[in-house]
């Protein structure tokens, strides 16, 4: 059975980037097929927000062993959200011994936007032109000025709450009112200022005022704090609440869930993409579908995996990989380092519902901004994500307090209102030797598709940064008047922060990059990669806002080139 249907554009992946591409291209008149590897989502059935642990079997911890035996790498999956994540039992990947990588994946319509962290920071030229600033690596082929209008449009569309803080290295945008700080966060902010650092409200993609007219079906946040389990009022930005409904409303979107792309099909003569081959996740039937343009938005490493699996006579090392750069320069942010404690002055006060506010305070980068702030032992910088206040299942109950019985309960109640914590989000240098490849021993997934082998380790730069962050977090907590209970920690294994980036980076030189400045493959003009794979360097900011802005910009270019017959 052979279909003659040729879509204008085929998008792989329905997360942040895929959803934005679908919205943008359908709005511009494209007939779009969107393939999503995972199942459809039905919020009425799949969102388990507002459920209390005591209302479910196993008190919310899930059946014994489920995580370790089925979803061991899905760190943020809980009993309430596990169906948003892949089963590691079906989705292998490999590493060398002693060099692990945590790969968190969401194969479902909406992707990771169903449960993402929502922090929405812009990058600045300190990031885009980092190599010019400190001499390491490569600059991005674009500047902040080029991306700023797209940041504006994305923030306006998704709805971001926050403040204009006037920091040149963390450019301001268009914000809804910020979520208020807790008492402890106010104290922490003052402490940071005493040490010469700023502490600002987190900028999050959550609606804090009345939705705008185009935000149909979305409501203001009601501070339930269950964002990671799916947001039933769509206060947080997600593909299924924002971009995909608008794309569907045009009548030009065909969404096919349960479609696992095996490879991109190319023309024998021209080497250009003609469509993709995919497998139905449920029936395991194999299909081929045709399109004039392919947009890869399957998430950083899945997109690169598809490209590496798309070998052909024209592209023997994978699609568009004659440079050998595909898979190279893998980065993640690291965390795990920080400090925690409690504010004595807040102990024993009346508790408030503070954990409904699923955001906190952020201490932006303060190292290596200029000559004055240059650190002698490392390049780039880090920020701190901080929070203070009451929370369900207070961690300090097991960490801070010993004993048992009535006295133990009394102590827990006393300190329940006082905890404070800081954890680092730090840049990782983009290095050639951190890369992914198709597993050379031939490991495949449950559908027979070759899997990735990860090669990634931190360098001395990240380790020195971690040491500095450990010392600085303690300094800030003490300056804030907190009693410090723990400091330091272990750097998170690569991947755990779920900010894996790079492996199909942008650049002006086809010999050292995979994509051009518009996310278009140098070697295959009708293939675009719009997700985190395109990043040249990681900065230390959460990447989703930048991914959305880059997608918007790439699709605008794609549409113009398409009209001019250049694709």
């Amino acid at each position: 059975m052979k279909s003659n249907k040729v879509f204008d554009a085929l998008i792989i992946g329905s997360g942040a980037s895929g959803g934005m591409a679908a919205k943008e291209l359908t709005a511009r008149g494209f007939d779009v097929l969107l393939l999503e590897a995972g199942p459809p989502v039905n919020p009425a059935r799949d969102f388990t927000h507002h459920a209390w642990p005591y209302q479910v079997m196993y008190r919310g911890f899930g059946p014994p062993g489920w995580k370790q035996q089925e979803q061991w790498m899905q760190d943020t999956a809980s009993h309430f959200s596990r169906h948003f994540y892949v089963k590691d039992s079906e989705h292998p990947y490999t590493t060398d011994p002693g060099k692990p990588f945590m790969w968190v994946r969401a194969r479902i319509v909406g992707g990771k936007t169903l449960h993402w962290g929502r922090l929405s920071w812009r990058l600045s030229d300190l990031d885009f032109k980092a190599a010019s600033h400190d001499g390491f690596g490569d600059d991005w082929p674009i500047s902040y000025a080029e991306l700023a209008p797209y940041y504006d449009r994305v923030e306006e569309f998704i709805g971001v709450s926050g403040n204009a803080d006037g920091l040149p290295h963390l450019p301001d945008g268009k914000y809804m009112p910020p979520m208020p700080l807790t008492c402890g966060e106010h104290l922490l902010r003052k402490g940071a200022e005493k040490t010469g650092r700023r502490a600002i409200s987190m900028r999050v993609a959550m609606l804090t005022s009345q939705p705008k007219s185009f935000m149909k079906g979305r409501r203001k946040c009601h501070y339930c704090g269950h964002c990671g389990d799916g947001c039933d009022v769509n206060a947080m930005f997600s593909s299924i609440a924002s971009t995909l409904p608008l794309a569907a409303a045009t009548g030009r979107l065909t969404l096919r869930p349960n479609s696992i792309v095996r490879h991109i099909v190319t023309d024998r003569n021209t080497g250009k993409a003609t469509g993709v081959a995919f497998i139905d996740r449920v029936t395991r039937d194999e299909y081929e579908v045709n399109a004039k343009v392919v947009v890869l938005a399957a998430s950083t490493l899945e997109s690169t995996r598809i490209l590496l699996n798309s070998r052909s006579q024209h592209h023997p090392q994978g699609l568009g990989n004659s440079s050998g750069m595909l898979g190279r320069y893998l980065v993640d942010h690291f965390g795990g380092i920080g400090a925690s404690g409690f504010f004595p002055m807040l102990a024993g006060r009346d508790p408030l519902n503070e954990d409904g506010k699923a955001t906190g305070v952020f201490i932006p980068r303060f190292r290596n901004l200029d000559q004055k702030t240059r650190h002698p032992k490392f390049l780039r910088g880090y920020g701190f994500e901080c929070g203070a206040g009451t929370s369900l299942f207070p961690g300090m109950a097991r960490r801070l307090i010993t004993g048992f019985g009535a006295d133990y309960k009394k102590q827990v109640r006393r300190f329940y209102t006082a905890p404070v914590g800081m954890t680092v989000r730090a840049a990782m240098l983009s290095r050639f030797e951190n890369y992914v490849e198709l597993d050379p021993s031939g490991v495949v997934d449950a559908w027979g598709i070759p899997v990735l082998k990860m090669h990634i380790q931190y360098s001395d730069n990240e380790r020195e940064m971690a040491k500095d962050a450990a010392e600085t977090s303690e300094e800030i907590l003490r300056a804030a008047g907190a009693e410090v209970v723990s400091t330091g920690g272990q750097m998170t294994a690569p991947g755990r922060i779920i900010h894996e980036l790079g492996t199909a980076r942008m650049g002006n030189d086809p010999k050292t990059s995979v994509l051009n400045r518009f996310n278009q493959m140098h070697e295959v003009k009708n293939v675009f990669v719009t997700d985190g794979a395109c990043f040249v360097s990681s900065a230390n900011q959460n990447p989703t806002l930048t991914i959305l802005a880059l997608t918007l910009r790439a699709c605008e270019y794609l549409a113009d080139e398409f009209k001019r017959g250049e694709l």
Partner: protein
Amino acid sequence: MLREAENPGSQVARLTGNQRKLHSIHGVLRGRVVDGQFEVQGQPYRFSFVPTTAALVVGRLVLTGRMTVYSPQLGMRFVDAVEAQAIAIQGGVGVSPVRRQLLTGTAQTSQTSTSEQKMEQEKGPETDLQPGLHPFETPRLDELGRPVVESTGPLSFAGVLYFNLSPLNDLTLGVPMDLSKVQLNLRLAPTDDLARDLQTIFSRMTDALYDDVIDESAAREQVEELNRIFKF
């Protein structure tokens, strides 16, 4: 909310028609038995693989044992002398498994390999109740006083082993799939002492065989250890 077009129908071209392959099966180590389940046409098939011997073959670990499949229609079927060649690993992330003396009583030849591991082994929850940390998650610094990376170096362990199984006969095992090239994904998430011991041995084995520098003599020691355990 979005409604998906569930079936684009003739807009895509279906290609397959031949008997489908079973590409991979997933099992968890319980004691020395690999237990798991896979689905064929919506039907669940439980399986177990019980290794009886271990060997090194061309620098790779090969386990040999009995593969048993519990078919919903045909009941239990098994094949002996199935070979499982370990081809790759996935490094584990999280709290390192508790290292302990092996049940086989051969701890003299199976001591923890580094002083750091020994320290970790000796430390119990009673002596390490540092606030804010799991008893086995003590923050560690490297020789330059910098924080270490979780689950790396001496804190590393194998989380999954991937094996290629020797060709299986679908008729013998009663599975209506092509079983000529099945990959066994063995998850090491021990909940019993024997499985913990085996995880420790497998971790040492992969350190010796599947890293950049190969140490066959260290691997042979672990093979001996495995065969001792399999004899019980």
